[in-house]
């Protein structure tokens, strides 16, 4: 299922930044793992918990509590459609529907080939250029319906 097998060396490198046995570093270390792997792999979380002497259940609770963490691998391109008030008024839902039908996934899900992840976010703080779609953090403003297919292929 998982595309990337967790490289223990990479995980070890992250862990070495934190003092062993200090459970207060849990969230920071999880953020680093998320940034490195694009998600929080079970194996990396296990290594982390061993290093910080934190029960694995605590790491799982934290990783599921915060939306910044994902437990499933994300696609190469993470598409975030802003559905904040301004974007909603200017047709964000049409863009979401369009992307759903192009990619054949529901919002919050990743395509089977692990190329795209479709997410909706509540506001990216760029209401002047609504509707906004971000592709791997790169903002596209005033997005017109019907142009999504081209945009996401270009963003690959």
């Amino acid at each position, binding site marked *: 299922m998982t595309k990337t097998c967790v490289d223990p060396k990479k995980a070890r490198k992250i862990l070495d930044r934190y003092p062993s046995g200090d459970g207060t570093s849990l969230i920071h270390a999880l953020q680093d793992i998320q940034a490195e792997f694009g998600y929080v792999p*079970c194996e990396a*979380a296990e290594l982390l918990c061993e290093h910080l002497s934190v*029960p*694995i*259940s605590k790491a*799982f*609770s934290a990783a599921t509590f915060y939306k910044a963490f994902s*437990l499933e691998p994300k696609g190469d391109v993470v598409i975030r459609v802003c559905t904040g008030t301004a974007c909603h008024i200017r047709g964000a839902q049409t863009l979401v529907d369009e992307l759903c039908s192009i990619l054949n996934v529901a919002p919050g899900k990743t395509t089977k080939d692990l190329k795209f992840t479709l997410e909706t976010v509540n506001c990216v703080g760029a209401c002047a250029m609504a509707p906004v779609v971000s592709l791997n953090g790169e903002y596209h403003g005033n997005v017109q319906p019907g142009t999504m297919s081209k945009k996401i292929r270009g963003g690959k």
Partner: protein
Amino acid sequence: MTNNKTINLEIDGRFFQADEGMTILEVARREGIEIPTLCQHDALEPVGACRLCLVEITHPNWKGWKGLVTSCLYPIEEGLQVTTNNPEIHTARKTLLDLLLARCPEATYIQKCAAEYGITATSFKKREEETTCILCGLCVRVCAAKGCNAIGATGRGITKGIAVPFRQPPPDCIGCASCAHICPTDTIKYTDTEDLRKIWGHKFKMVKCVSCGRPVMPEKQLEFEAAKAGLDAKYLTTCPQCSQDQTLATVQSSFQSKTVPGGSLEVAR
């Protein structure tokens, strides 16, 4: 404990003295005053998750201010005046139970509690996904108190739940089933056979009682308990019934071997 300050307080018009640091609920329970709770357990630290233990407090110095607080968490203070039941508290508890019933319409214990407040069916929209878990957190807390931390809360808000890490049989679980026993709504299930206990996707091999052969506890729990208590594992391989019988036999024989003044002493079993 002896140098603790004594606090005077009033509960439902009666005056009581109690040690500083006690909670309203502790004093009320000590005095036989009933306050309903769902997430409270004497062996665990209170968290105030169920809010059912709401009481009204006020104080002569508070210029008429009064408020509803969770009695399981509120530490007593000098001159505090507590009311454990009035129409306002009743309404608050009724709403809480109504909401719990909307979440867990099938939970028999919640049905029973709600019926005591005159609710037979929830007035809210029922939750679509069926559950009997009221998220009191007792299972997670008892597991942590035991020292295992095998299970935890997941998600937040409406998707919050109790789950095992990464949806796999929890590596830290010892199969003690404390979580299942403490659950007020019997949400956590386990099955016991002569040789196996199945819980949280695990299959634990049971240790048999050395004297009667009945299952005592899972092997993993035995190792854990023995290490925790610093005992040899063999001290824990007798079931409670046999261990009681053995103690009784020891006591009896010690009485029989000694001359008891005034004749023989019959020890009733």
